[in-house]
């Protein structure tokens, strides 16, 4: 039977369909892996970023596909809601990859509330801290829309949640 570590290494190959530079491990949505030796099944627990996130079904399918490719046949993907996903679970390397991709990573911890007008989100393109929010809601549920006042480029911010 395959080891838990092995499963995690396979999961590294599954990317977020909306932000393809991030693996689902970077994103922090994989909560646990249970190996059942008796009936030779692998259960992978994932949690949605947002309730209505349309990527969840695709992620579940991609997880199963990746496991099949690696020869792991009996896979159950279980969705869990509690504890609710938070951007605090995103890995540091995930945040760096996001920034390089052109999306500003979450700036603060989810439990510290910073009023949106006080939050400084550096521009992922020119790194300027002189930016302003255009809209708290962006192209997907997890992002806000910002504009850099120096290089004048609009950019997405992966909002703290």
């Amino acid at each position, binding site marked *: 039977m395959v080891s838990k570590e092995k499963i995690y290494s396979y999961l590294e190959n599954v990317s977020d369909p909306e932000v393809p530079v991030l693996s689902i491990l970077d994103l922090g949505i994989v909560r646990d892996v249970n190996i059942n030796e008796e009936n030779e099944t692998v259960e992978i627990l994932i949690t*949605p970023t*947002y*309730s*209505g*996130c*349309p990527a969840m079904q695709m992620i579940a399918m991609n997880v199963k596909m990746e496991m099949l490719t690696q020869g792991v046949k009996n896979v159950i993907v279980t969705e*869990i*809601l*509690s*504890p*609710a*996903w938070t951007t605090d679970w995103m890995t540091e390397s995930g945040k760096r990859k996001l920034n390089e991709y052109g999306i500003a990573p979450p700036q603060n911890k989810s439990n510290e509330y910073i009023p949106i007008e006080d939050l400084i989100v550096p521009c992922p393109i020119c790194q300027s801290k002189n930016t302003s929010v*255009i*809209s*708290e*809601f*962006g*192209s997907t*549920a997890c992002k806000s*829309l910002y504009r850099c006042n120096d290089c004048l480029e609009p950019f997405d911010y992966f909002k703290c*949640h």
Partner: protein
Amino acid sequence: MNNSLVEYIMHLADNSLIHGHRLSEWCGHGPILEVDIALSNIALDNIGAARSLYEYAAEIEGNGKTEDTYPYFRDVRQFKNSLLLELPNGNFADTIAKCLLFDTYQFYFYTALKNSSDNRLAAIAEKSLKEVTYHLRFSSEWVVRLGDGTDESKQKMQNAIAEHWEYAGELFAPSNIELEMIEQGIAPNIDALKDVWQQKIAETIEEATLSFPLSNEKGWFQSGGKKGIHTEYLGFILADLQYMQKTYPNSEW
């Protein structure tokens, strides 16, 4: 007991679904692009919450039921959403008024539901509360922007709050099912949420330089949705929402 729990979950799910569906009607019609995107995001969160709830109901009921059974294959009388949520979108101020009343309610409701003795409902509440916090900020900011805006926007915002106010009372009037759930520690006591809700709304209305609706003093409100007695609007919503599944039952993408 399971029947009552399913009925209760249905009421919560229907609230989220119908609100989400109404907001989704703004997609492509928002007054500006950012608002269009925001309303679509909020619609998605609500429909997502409804899915989690329907899924839970389907698991309890078993018998081949799925999360799709409830939204697509029930008729008007079986829907238990509050009347407020099925009202037409009206102008932008009307939608914002409806959102303010409901988002504020959802905020306090989910905060309380997090302590439910039902773990699954508590988990859904924990997830949804994070999202509702954004929704409430969005609707409150717009009430202030429109209320403290031009003469025309102020008038429209004031009218919108007055018109929707008489539908808000139903949110806090427990049905028999809700009473049973409150008794069991599954549902929060919604009646007790009314004061804090009203205080929060009053603060927003004051900041928006608007006045409190007069009908508030009468204490009377429109009701019926929780018992399945709806306005004529719900039938039209369902005709749109259920068309494909009723024409081609169980069709899939």
